[in-house]
């Protein structure tokens, strides 16, 4: 970005550029903008739940719309585009190619995101990010619901195009001297995640078309009154979106694989076990989708199969944690801001995984299903692991993108507030779930346990919010007025960095 500030070019030149660093910049900035918008909604939700009864949100319909857009925006408009942004910056450099394989396709994939985001935000649908029929087919008010469906359709096409681009770039465009086994793990993470996208997303794309025609009244795929089956939608949905969880988490782990060895001043403990674990994860990600559906009346056998399929993801995830710990072991670790985020992310990754193992145990589902336990559990993943990895990585990219250093003290304060806040919000929500509080509720029973735990969670959310404001100010200020970074080695760590600023952008 500083390249832009030092050698200004007209903004349309960046917008219509097909160069991978320009597209990466667009992805990154767009995703961060949506992150702050989605985060504002989260704070609204937590403020509403601070006391039982109506607080700041007028009615339950508005509340339902807010949590729907919060979830959709955070997953599809923040986490996925952010990962694509990182991939755009780093993958071509890591495989030693001049650009992405299909630069124009790359730009097209990005430019599908803003209109989709506009559809989601202007529509403000209410049927949760899961859009389950029959509710979504027969009761959810239009046109917001239809706008959401179109937005998802566009986003699906965008991620498939992006995935094709990453796969071709890594497999076909890597330098002939570079064997696949030596491709850095960050690029490997994009390869695994993109393969998952290619296999998983078309299923939901089909379900979306069926849902739309159901809403138009011309079909009854998921409408029981017309002979359809609402459970079929859930299978199609989760066949896409359980693997999608890994599409989110694998690049975040890849980002940690870039940060942790760097700041430990040691190479990764085992490149081969990292690759093995990525490949394992992308395979077993397809074996667990129906663990979201234990309560829909599945048979004992089905439940057992999906429990085993779910537990199968744990050894591979554990191998990543082992790899991180073994890499740090014997290092000389500099706890600069990116490293703090990465280590915090590992700690929360373990907590999220342990909760996931408990969730997979099928009788336990009778306690936790659709309760706040689930909310706490998956937020430990999406916030505690994926967003932590991503935010840490943005700090790591910051000098490369802008040529300037962020403010280290404020970066650390940001980490501490976010870590403390995350623990306060999402661990408390696990306990709330054990007390039986359902998720997606506008109001709750005014029992003292519910009130106090919701208040702890809300305070934690406000702490996270304050930290994120600090982050925003730090980023904006440092991008223009920060200390100039030593571009060869911004943290004084030694070793060979992958430098996005070394990419040969024809516009500079």
């Amino acid at each position, binding site marked *: 970005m500083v390249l832009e500030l030092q050698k200004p070019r007209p903004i349309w030149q960046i917008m219509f550029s097909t160069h991978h660093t320009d597209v990466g910049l667009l992805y990154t900035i767009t995703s961060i903008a949506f992150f702050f918008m989605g985060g504002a909604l989260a704070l609204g939700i937590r403020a509403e739940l601070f006391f039982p009864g109506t607080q700041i949100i007028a009615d*339950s319909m508005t509340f*339902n719309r807010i949590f729907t857009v919060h979830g959709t925006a955070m997953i599809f408009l923040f986490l996925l585009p952010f990962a694509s942004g990182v991939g755009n910056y780093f993958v071509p450099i890591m495989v030693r190619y001049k650009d992405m394989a299909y630069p124009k396709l790359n730009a097209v994939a990005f430019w599908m995101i803003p209109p989709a985001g506009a559809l989601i935000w202007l529509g403000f649908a*209410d*049927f*949760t990010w*899961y859009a*389950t029929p*029959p*509710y979504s087919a*027969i*009761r*959810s008010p239009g046109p917001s619901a239809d706008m959401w469906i179109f937005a998802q359709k566009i986003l699906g096409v965008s991620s498939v195009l992006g995935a094709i681009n990453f796969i071709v770039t890594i497999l076909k465009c890597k330098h002939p001297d570079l064997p696949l086994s030596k491709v850095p793990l960050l690029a490997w993470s994009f390869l695994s995640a993109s393969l998952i996208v290619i296999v998983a997303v078309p299923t939901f794309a089909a379900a979306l078309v069926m849902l739309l025609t159901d809403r138009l009244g011309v079909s009854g795929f998921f409408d*029981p*009154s017309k002979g359809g*089956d*609402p*459970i079929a939608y859930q299978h199609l949905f989760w066949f896409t979106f359980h693997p999608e969880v890994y599409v989110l988490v694998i690049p975040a782990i890849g980002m940690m694989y870039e940060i942790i060895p760097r700041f430990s001043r040691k190479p*990764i403990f*085992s*490149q*081969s*076990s990292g690759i093995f674990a990525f490949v394992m994860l992308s395979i077993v990600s397809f074996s667990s989708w129906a663990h979201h559906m234990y*309560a*829909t*009346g599945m048979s*004992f056998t089905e*439940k*057992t199969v999906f*429990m*085993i399929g779910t*537990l199968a993801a*744990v*050894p591979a995830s*554990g*191998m990543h944690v*082992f*790899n991180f710990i*073994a890499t740090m072991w014997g290092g000389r670790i500099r706890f600069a801001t990116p490293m703090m985020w990465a280590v915090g992310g590992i700690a929360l990754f373990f907590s999220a995984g342990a909760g996931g*193992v*408990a969730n*997979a*145990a*099928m*009788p*336990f*589902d*009778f*306690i936790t*299903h*659709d*309760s706040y336990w689930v909310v706490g559990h998956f937020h430990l993943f999406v916030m505690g692991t994926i967003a932590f990895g991503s935010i840490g990585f943005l700090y790591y990219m910051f000098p490369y993108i802008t040529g300037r250093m962020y403010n280290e003290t404020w970066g650390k304060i940001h980490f501490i507030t976010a870590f403390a806040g995350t623990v306060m919000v999402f661990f408390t929500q696990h306990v709330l779930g054990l*007390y*039986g509080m*359902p*998720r*997606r*509720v*506008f*109001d709750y*029973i005014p029992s003292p346990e519910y009130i106090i735990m919701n208040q702890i969670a809300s305070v934690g959310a406000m702490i996270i919010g304050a930290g994120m404001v600090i982050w925003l100010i730090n980023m904006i200020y440092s991008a223009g007025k920060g200390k100039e970074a030593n571009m060869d080695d911004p943290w004084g760590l030694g070793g060979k960095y992958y430098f996005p600023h070394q990419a040969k952008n024809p516009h500079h």
Partner: protein
Amino acid sequence: MSGHSNWPEWIYVGVVICLLAYVGAEAWNVERLVEHTPADAEVIKVVGQQWFWTFEHADGTKEVGELHLKKGQPYKFEITAKDVNHSFNIHDYVILQDAIVGRVNTAWFVPDEAGEYIIQCREYCGLLHYNMRGTLIVEE
């Protein structure tokens, strides 16, 4: 990068797999126990609709929003929904089963303590989902 021995990692993976196997076996066993409905369970038909619960006892009496059961007697719920999906939940007795239009799901339990318990909906079902509650009254 490579060339060094990796045995600690494999031992670690082995330990993880053993723990998972234990968790899986325990879960399988408990699930098997709680799924086995006793033959003398009395059937209660449960219907969820926006935004209340209806119950029909074996003798044909109907209740709306309230359910009266006797302590010590096994009951089997046959749960379905009329309009959109709901989820029938009595958290204090760990009963949870989705109410799906066009399907009948079952859950059984034996109330073991007299008192009043909350029945709630756990699946998002629209405007008043948060308020879709009922009361279970267990009598001596």
